């Protein structure tokens, strides 16, 4: 029997038929599906006991309650909202939900690093021990002090609402340096405006739940402004139908049809940067038609009528100025809003028992024009919103005296006697520290005053997040030594000479002092959810150990061993004050907190309060309604006498008053015919931490396509420029240029280019880098002439086909 071709085919046929009747094909198909789960690069949590830890999110100043899910107590697998948290009750934003991607990020810094090559060379860093790193900083600090140069040490901190800011201030004061700064935010100008008009060091809080009519000048309530998750919940409550209660009407004023604008009951599209003019136009109608709260104005407001100053000179009051200068036609011309709309808004506002005027931009991370802050405050004052039963609250910025008076030796006195770098002499002298970051950097970059020998950068990434990024790098090149306290190898840390890595936000003990836009005092302790992943140290502990190393009065001014002790001291101060309570979702109703009724404590003592806060709860207290103001006139000052020293005594009357005062962007209009504005959204992180891969998944294809970022222009603008949808283009401003793609949309005004923020990183890892361009490198900063704060509203720009 020979094995022929036919026989072979029969054999194969039989084998195939037989195989089909065995488990081989079916089992292999099934198993190979499961086999794909074994690939080593497939993320898979380890198996083990699941536990949950509550804490407070520190990714932004929003202070949300979070719950972390852990496996075996050491591997975090998810961060969600803490349902028991009184204000955010289970909500969390995309950044908070992605926070684990920063904890386990490959760009974390595992050990102290020293730059051995030239500054800015990422490959030049070498790991050194903590002992050596601390010794280097301490010896530098000691040397500068002994040489009488303590004023040349500066610090820029990104932790604005944490005790860390107070700790740095205490350290620098005792050491003898006036150069302490925090990253800019809206509170920089807001606090000054409040201080000038009321004499208090307080932030403006808004009684959202009480208000029945909200007029928002540019504050993107749904896109990360203020405390984002809390505001989303407020927005949800506005939508709920409650028997007998009218629904809250919400009018949004903004040049762009943002998400917030589209969700509002009414959108008023004004020209970019003219919101304050509209506010004054509304004030004009209120005054002219006598619709303002006459009782409050007569009783509590100074400068409404004409007045006489200390020198006996006759001054015009707010009433005269606003009637003369902000007539409907003038305001309509400036803002592009119809006169009857302005009138309508004024009447609507005055008809409400609980109206509320809010203002702001982006995520609240830019100071505002001081005069514009004064204008929005004035509108609230005219409506009587500042009365005890009103909708505005003045929340003490940091009411507890935690640190003892720093002990100053001769060197500290000498150093503190030097003027802070770049601080304009016009900056108003109030109880509020003036945070002039941009003039500071300009002075460092130009070398016009004295040099900075040692610069501490704490949890901040100014090289990326500050506008006019070129100025920041110029300044860095002039600094003697840069020490970064970042957890990540970000753009700024790349410029450091020494890196003392901090714990990541989820690994460290920290706190949150007050929430932006919330009408009551707030305090929460963020406790670590797990042990540090790397050889990092809490910056609070590092500052204390540096103080100890310096000995003498510096050590005496900061006598604590650990940062935890400092926080416990703060909690003790709160407990001893004996008011406020630990709020729980089930029992606390933010709507019922009002200034005229205090909250009685529900904790036994400081230890009890500490334990409750460490377990993820928060402490709240009413902001007492001011019965009298501590201004020179003892009233709310529409005419700010505190500004008299800042502007010349012979200055025009309206220089002491709220007014529309646009700062002109530079550049020639013929060369740069467009106005560029930047916007933020909840989907993109544009601050200290970059967009995590999780967050990138939220980005639509008409915002980021591969490496290209889309900018928004109106169809009319597109027609003029000859640009089609999705076309590649070059966007140029007096500060720089970038390759972009255009999205044609009616959501922006003709002549305006709207640019998203948060892209264009050059540091971190492959998932973060090289995505589009950094809007900050194109944005121009305009220094407020009175305060010296760096304000931003629009930059001149041109757009041409690539």
């Amino acid at each position, binding site marked *: 029997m020979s094995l022929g071709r036919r026989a072979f085919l029969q054999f194969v046929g*039989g*084998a195939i038929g037989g195989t089909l*009747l065995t488990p081989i094909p079916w089992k292999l198909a099934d198993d190979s599906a*499961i086999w794909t*789960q074994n690939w080593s690069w497939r993320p898979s949590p380890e198996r083990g006991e699941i536990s949950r830890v509550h804490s407070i999110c520190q990714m932004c100043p929003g202070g949300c309650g979070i719950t972390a899910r852990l496996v075996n107590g050491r591997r975090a697998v998810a961060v969600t909202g803490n349902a028991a948290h009184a204000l955010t009750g289970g909500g969390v934003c995309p950044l908070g939900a992605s926070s684990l991607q920063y904890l386990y990020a490959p760009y974390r810094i595992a050990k102290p690093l020293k730059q051995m090559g030239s500054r800015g060379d990422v490959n030049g860093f070498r790991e050194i021990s903590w002992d050596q790193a601390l010794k280097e900083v301490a010896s530098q600090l000691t040397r500068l002090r002994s040489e009488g140069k303590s004023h040349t040490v500066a610090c820029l901190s990104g932790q604005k609402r944490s005790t860390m800011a107070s700790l740095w201030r205490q350290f620098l004061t005792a050491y003898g340096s006036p150069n302490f700064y925090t990253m800019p935010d809206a509170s920089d100008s807001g606090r000054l405006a409040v201080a000038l008009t009321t004499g208090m060091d307080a932030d403006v809080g808004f009684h959202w739940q009480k208000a029945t009519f909200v007029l928002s000048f540019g504050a993107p309530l749904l896109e990360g402004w203020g405390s984002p998750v809390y505001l989303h919940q407020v927005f949800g409550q506005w939508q709920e139908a409650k028997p007998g209660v009218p629904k809250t009407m919400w009018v949004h004023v903004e040049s762009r049809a943002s998400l917030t604008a589209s969700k509002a009951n009414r959108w008023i599209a004004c020209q970019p940067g003219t919101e304050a003019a509209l506010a004054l136009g509304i004030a004009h109608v209120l005054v002219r038609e006598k619709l303002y709260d006459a009782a409050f104005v007569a009783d509590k407001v100074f400068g409404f009528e004409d007045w006489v100053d200390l020198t006996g000179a006759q001054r015009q009051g707010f009433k005269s100025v606003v009637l003369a200068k902000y007539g409907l036609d003038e305001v309509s011309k400036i803002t592009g809003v119809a006169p009857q709309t302005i009138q309508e808004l004024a009447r609507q506002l005055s008809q409400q028992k609980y109206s509320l005027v809010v203002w702001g931009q982006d995520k609240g991370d830019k100071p505002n024009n001081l005069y514009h802050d004064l204008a929005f405050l004035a509108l609230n004052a005219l409506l009587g919103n500042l009365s005890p039963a009103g909708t505005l609250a003045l929340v003490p910025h940091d009411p507890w005296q935690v640190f003892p008076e720093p002990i100053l030796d001769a060197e500290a006195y000498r150093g503190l006697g030097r003027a802070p770098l770049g601080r304009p002499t016009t900056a108003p002298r109030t109880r509020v520290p003036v945070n002039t970051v941009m003039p500071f950097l300009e002075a460092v970059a130009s070398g016009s005053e004295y040099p900075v020998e040692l610069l501490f950068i704490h949890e901040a990434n100014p090289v990326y997040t500050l506008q006019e990024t070129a100025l920041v790098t110029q300044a860095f090149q002039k600094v003697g030594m840069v020490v970064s306290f970042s957890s990540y190898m970000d753009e700024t840390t790349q410029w450091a000479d020494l890196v003392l890595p901090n714990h990541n936000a989820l690994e460290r003990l920290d706190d949150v002092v007050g929430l932006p836009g919330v009408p009551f005092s707030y305090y929460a302790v963020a406790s670590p959810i797990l042990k540090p992943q790397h050889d990092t140290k809490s910056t609070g502990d590092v500052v204390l150990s540096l103080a100890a190393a310096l000995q003498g009065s510096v050590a005496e001014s900061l006598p604590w061993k650990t940062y935890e002790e400092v926080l416990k001291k703060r909690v003790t101060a709160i407990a001893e004050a004996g008011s406020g309570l630990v709020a729980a979702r089930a029992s606390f109703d933010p709507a019922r907190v009002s200034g005229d009724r205090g909250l009685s404590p529900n904790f036994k003592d400081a230890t009890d309060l500490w334990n409750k806060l460490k377990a993820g709860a928060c402490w709240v207290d009413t902001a007492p309604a001011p019965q009298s103001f501590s201004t020179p006139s003892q009233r709310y000052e529409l005419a700010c006498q505190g500004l008299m020293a800042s502007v010349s005594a012979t200055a025009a009357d309206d220089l002491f008053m709220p007014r529309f005062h646009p700062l002109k962007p530079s550049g020639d209009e013929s060369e740069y015919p467009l106005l560029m504005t930047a916007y933020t959204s909840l989907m993109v992180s544009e601050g200290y931490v970059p967009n995590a891969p999780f967050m990138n998944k939220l980005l639509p294809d008409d915002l980021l396509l591969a490496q290209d970022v889309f900018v928004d222009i109106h169809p009319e603008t597109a027609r003029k420029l000859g640009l089609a949808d999705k076309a590649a283009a070059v966007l140029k401003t007096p500060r720089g240029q970038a390759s972009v793609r255009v999205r044609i949309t009616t959501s922006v005004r003709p002549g305006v280019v709207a640019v998203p923020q948060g892209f264009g990183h050059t540091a971190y890892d492959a998932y973060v880098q090289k995505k589009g361009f950094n809007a900050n490198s194109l944005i121009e900063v305009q220094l407020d002439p009175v305060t010296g704060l760096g304000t931003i509203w629009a930059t001149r720009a041109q757009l041409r086909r690539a």
Partner: protein
Amino acid sequence: MIFFLAGFIGALLVGWVVFPNVLYSTKTQPVTFLHSSHQDSDCQDCHSFREDGSFSGLPKLEKCAECHAEPMGESPEEKRLVEEFIQQEREIPWLVYAWQPDNVYFSHAAHTQTQGIECVRCHRDVTKETKNPPFKENRLTGYSDKTMKMVECEKCHAERGASNACHVCHK
């Protein structure tokens, strides 16, 4: 025809006899453990539910250490348990017969506590075992040959009127 039959029968032999032996490797547990020697208790004493209702699965080393901090008897396996694991605080890398693939979400509480289903409906009865069954590990998937297949879940769900929608188990 004879060649067809030869191919057919050959393939059947390979498929039903050779293939299963090639696909699975036989492994032994790191420590010999007999449920029948620990039968002064019921399943839940060791395989307990936590306060929050989640299932703790296999006991941790500390459970073993409660009794075996020092050897109780003469057995060399027990001596090994004490010396190699308990004293060195090294968790025992048990081979688990019933582990489900990661893409399945399964709650013991929903089945045993809410529905009252007996453990042995899905797990083998260990009460009379005199030695550990061999652990046959699928070379492709890494799971045991005892790992329950989806069809079992579906059948039971169908019988009891529980939903068989994908997202019930694949969340």
